[in-house]
């Protein structure tokens, strides 16, 4: 039973650690525009390619 008393706080600490990360990301505006970045991801490759070929 002692192992439960030790693991439970760790598990909860871990959970709240992730919650903290999530809150930090949403406060930072990571979820403000959910649509555009998904498309932009495809375009970044193109830009990188251009930059490399210019070098």
């Amino acid at each position: 039973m002692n192992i439960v008393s030790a693991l439970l706080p760790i598990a909860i600490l871990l959970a709240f650690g992730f919650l903290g990360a999530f809150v930090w990301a949403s406060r930072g505006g990571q979820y403000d525009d959910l649509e555009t970045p998904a498309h932009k991801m495809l375009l970044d490759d193109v830009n990188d390619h251009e930059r490399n070929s210019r070098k």
Partner: protein
Amino acid sequence: MTDLATTSQNFCTHCGNALTAESTLRIDAVSPAFCCAGCETVYAILSSRGLGRYYEIKEACELIRKPRPVRVSHESFAYLDDPEFQKLYLMPSLEDGRKTVELYLEGVHCVACLWLVEKLPELVSGVESAQLDIGRSIARLTLTPDAKLAPIAAELDRLGYRPHIIRHDEEAAALLKRENRTWLTRIGVAATCAGNIMLMAVPLYAGADGYAGQLFRWVSLALFVPTLFYSSVPFFRSAWSSLRTRSISIDVPIVLAIVFGGIISAINVVRGSEHIYFDSLSALVFLLLSSRYVLRRIQQSALGSSHLLNFLAPSRARRFDPELRELKEVPVHTLKADDVIEVQTGEIFPADGLVATPGGGFVSNALLTGEAVPTPVREDDLVYSGTENQGEPLQIKITATGLQTRIGEILRQAEEASRTKARIVDVTDRASRWFLAGVVISAILLFVVVYSYTGVDEALNRALALMIVTCPCALALATPLALSISLSRAARAGILIKSANALEKLSTVKTVFLDKTGTLTEGRFDVLDWRDIPELRNPNDRLAAWALERQSRHPIAKALVRHLGSEARKPALCPEISDFQETLGLGVSGTVFGHHYGLKTLPQRDGFSSPLATYIGLYRDGSLIACITLGDRMRSDSVPALNRIRSLGLEPIVLSGDNQTVVNEVASRLAIAKERAFSEFSPEQKREAVAGRKDCLMVGDGANDAVALSAAYVSAAVHGSVELSLRTADIYVASPGVSTLAHLLEMSKETMRTIHRNLIFSLFYNLLGAIGAIFGWMNPLFAAILMPLSALTVFLSSKWGTSALRQVFSELTT
């Protein structure tokens, strides 16, 4: 750089729309094909700047919205740099003097558009960075301190993205952002707590007892505290506000279940009893919060009404400055009565006024009367704000501006009407209201009855089980889901719907009132038919006709030039004209290529005539060589769209301000009976026709039909500017014509069927659960399994229900 992509010759290289018969003139085997001059211009700009990648990206990407041909407005946008204007509408400058501005861009439709807009810093000087929110079509530009806004706006316009300045409300925008982030935090907290409580619940259900059991129950209680006091706050607020207005919303039983469930579970934890409900309660909170957040985001992305209010009609005027004795461009809101302004050909009058130009001109009153044929005006005639100058540039002396103008008055009336419109409660609320009250009452009854037979413990358990199991969470999740799926699909097809209510109302519509000009027809003069007399044909005839008509400002001449322009657009080919003559109202003549050409109005001929059209004859050296028919062309999609509307069991009725012969002709082509086609209706008469009628849909343009649109049960604007339309109509369709609307009607019916099916599913589950709870067969484990299961069924039902919609919209977007 890569070569520009060439697509199939049956589609416009720029916008990808199918080429119509009119535009097939432009096709030759080698060069790319375009549907209009606008698309061609953009193509030329892009290829000259080495931005041909646009077409490559476009080829590979998925469409976000339905594309449409480029329409360049050719505004100079000089008013944007007016300091007075900037003070009102621009965001405050950043510390180092740079400025930021937000623009709503019309015509953004795919990833390639995103790429192009963000390339703006390379295209025009002064732009430091450009970011596009593709979901809302809003671009945020950062400008250098000395940047001029006008050339930037003009460049966007030339690329086919007509910019609209958004009156920036920093506070509202910041508030919205903050609210969204708070929602997310609430969801995050609820998810963390619910997940961990469920983890504790597993050993408890498996029979953990003694020290471990107690520990898990206490930890569950601790984790439930933030769920109750932080995550559930929105439910408390909305339940409280609904109780204050003496109505019962879905949040009332939710709050009751959460609060009482929480209290009873907490008491049981303290007493060491097994009956705790933290797992179901926290999962309920998490699921409800998530579904509402999704709905919220989708509504915001479909350009919420809060944004529309901030829309500013882009308008400026050239005012005659008496001191400098020259014309100066000023923003429209600075105009006063007695100012003299000049309005160019093709421009909209910014105010009511008297014509001050001695010769007079031509004015299209289509906005006010719906009549497509331009009316001649003489000196001292009154012209109205919102109508279009189709003749020579006119100087007018202003008599009224802003809301005092005739169109301003119409808009004011329209806004009043939309304010008095009854607020219809949410679909979910209405459908579930009666049983929500039932749940609360029966839970109390159950408690009393069971208490008198057994005891307080069992009574509390059963009453609570009833409350939890009947809590319409499946319903609360599924209805927003079905609605939001439909709303977002509509937004992608270029349909802006103000509220989910409008979608619900659409599904109950029985009658469809249609405006004629601009809705069923193109709303402008066009060449409908060009018939040469074959034995007299000469390759230079059309070029000569083009050259002659180019000299005239008459609307008919402009239609002819538009039609012929494609063949003779290279300026090098423009032939010399001698002894040019224009007889007002009759036609033009002159000598070109050594022949005397003339274009004159032909008298109406029997067997050949149609009241819709005007006939022009092309003469060479006195003999008729071609017969040209001009008129307001019927949209190609009107007939199939109307058939579709009829097949849905709806009755179309035409309301028009145009004269009877024209309206009857259009109605007969659309197979609408004469007594269902009303002509010569003023905007006020149109309002009377639709006002007070239940289940009718009014379709018209956002300006002259504004009053009727706002008075109707539900209304859609298919023409006119976005900002004007959405002030009065419930729905704005960005692509002109009624075919998209026919799809929308189908979709609304499909959505409502899905919602009704969901209601039946969840009622069935709730009934089953309620019976179980009343007779005491319901234990926490069973309730916990039943709840997500019912939610899942309804979720799947929403998905299946919309697969049919997906088909409809894949037709639309491809």
